[in-house]
């Protein structure tokens, strides 16, 4: 569905990504794990054209992607950014409406808002509250629901568990599983490697802008090097 070939990205003289190639098949969850500064967020932002690549191609459903972020969203690629980035001064409902900005029909917008309320009912109770007043976990759920509003084919999640307590993290991962069940393809960038690997179909490990390792999620979970570097276990 999404295929990236030999992608190079640089911030001035600093190389952030050096020759990344990866495939995202339809209907799967692909995890990208790696430590801080490995280039995970850069990769997502380059897919969404928030950053321009130096070289390499990104193809979605066989066609090369536009250079404009808003057009990429119309094709069905939606990113839920790192740190949630809900519109703090807008109400919960307005945040969802903003997420559904690309929808043409007002009726679909209303239907999708109802779907999100069913998916995460707290949002219904808080719909007229300013999004900035929600707790961190609620904001994350809102951010994901806001992303789903546009009916994406491919959802890019950037560190959805960042800064959240264990219970809400479980809730987030459950939600991601349900998103896959709805047939939406997911690219999940995570530092919580254990959970991400357990959930995904296939994973890439990013180190210093390069793909250091790749494989089935469960295989990588058992890999000695991964265990040592990312799962905090001594072997």
């Amino acid at each position: 569905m999404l295929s990236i070939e030999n992608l190079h990205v640089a911030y001035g003289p600093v190389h952030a990504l050096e020759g990344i190639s990866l495939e995202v098949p339809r209907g799967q969850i692909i995890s990208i794990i790696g430590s801080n500064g490995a280039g995970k967020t850069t990769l997502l932002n380059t897919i969404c054209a928030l950053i321009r690549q130096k070289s390499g191609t990104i193809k979605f459903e066989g066609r090369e992607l536009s250079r404009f972020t808003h057009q990429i969203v119309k094709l069905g690629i939606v990113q839920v950014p790192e740190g949630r980035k809900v519109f703090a001064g807008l109400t919960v409902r307005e945040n969802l409406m903003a997420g559904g900005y690309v929808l043409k029909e007002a009726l679909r917008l209303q239907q999708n808002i109802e779907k999100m309320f069913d998916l995460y009912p707290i949002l219904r109770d808080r719909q007229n509250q300013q999004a900035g007043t929600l707790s961190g976990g609620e904001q994350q759920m809102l951010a994901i629901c806001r992303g789903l509003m546009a009916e994406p084919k491919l959802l890019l999640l950037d560190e959805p568990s960042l800064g959240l307590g264990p219970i809400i993290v479980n809730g987030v991962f459950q939600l991601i599983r349900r998103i896959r069940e709805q047939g939406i393809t997911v690219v999940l960038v995570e530092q919580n490697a254990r959970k991400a690997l357990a959930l995904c179909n296939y994973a890439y490990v990013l180190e210093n802008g390069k793909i250091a390792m790749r494989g089935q999620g469960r295989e990588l979970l058992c890999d000695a090097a991964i265990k040592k570097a990312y799962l905090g276990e001594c072997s």
Partner: protein
Amino acid sequence: MTPQLLINGISLGSVYALIAVGFALIFNILKFSNFSHGGLMSVTAYIGYVACVFLGHYIKDLPLFVVTLVAAALGGGLLALVVERVAFRRLRNSNSSVIYYFISSITMGILMENSITIFASSNFYSYPSFFPASVIRFGALSVAIPDLLTFLFSAAALVILLVVLFRTKIGLAIRSTSFDTSTAKLMGMDPNRVVAATFFASGVLGGVAGVFLGINYTLYPQLGQLIVKGFVASVIGGLGSISGALIGAVLLGVVEIFLIGLVGAGWSPVVIFVIMLVFLLLRPRGISGVIVQEKA
């Protein structure tokens, strides 16, 4: 006597509100003070003047006044689109720092003012009087008709703006982009369209304000420098807050009218700038208290 001054003040304040809100809209979305707004108001005041002189042969009184306002508003909106395109779009696309926006906006303002001087000379013109300078009496109160109409039309323009901002899709996009441009892009909002729409709205308000300024103070190329009053109102109300700009502007109008009665027209600006300085020193976030959020 006193309630009447209050009404005059509110009427003047509503014109300041048009300026201050036009100012705040741009500040919100691009995080800089758009000083070219003054030049734009000068130009629209002349556009309104030309429209009402030409059309004055065919229509009169209230219809002429409305047509004049609409012509100036549309002219202002379109001019603002040109300003955005010429002065700011390239800066945005190359992520320039705020100082360039400042320089560009001041340059654009000077350019517009001086274009008027070239084409219309630096002479003073005055709008024909649309209405007999009569008053309406409400019991003991008498309200001058021009003041009343100024207030009504300014309020109408602001209400329309609020409806657009809070009830339409493009309004939602403007508010989202004001909070966070990159995230708004990730929602599929086209920044160029959103910024253009914001400039158009700001220009429409500037156009209406330009006509009222022209009527109140006669026409001259530097008329738009009254933008300073809009800026003062923004500071008092809280930069980057629409409701703050409204409150600040009405307060400023009322205070100014009272000061003119109290200390005279010469000293009143002095006192007003002192008030602004006090606000900047003691409460820089203004009355509304919204702290402009850094873009994260």
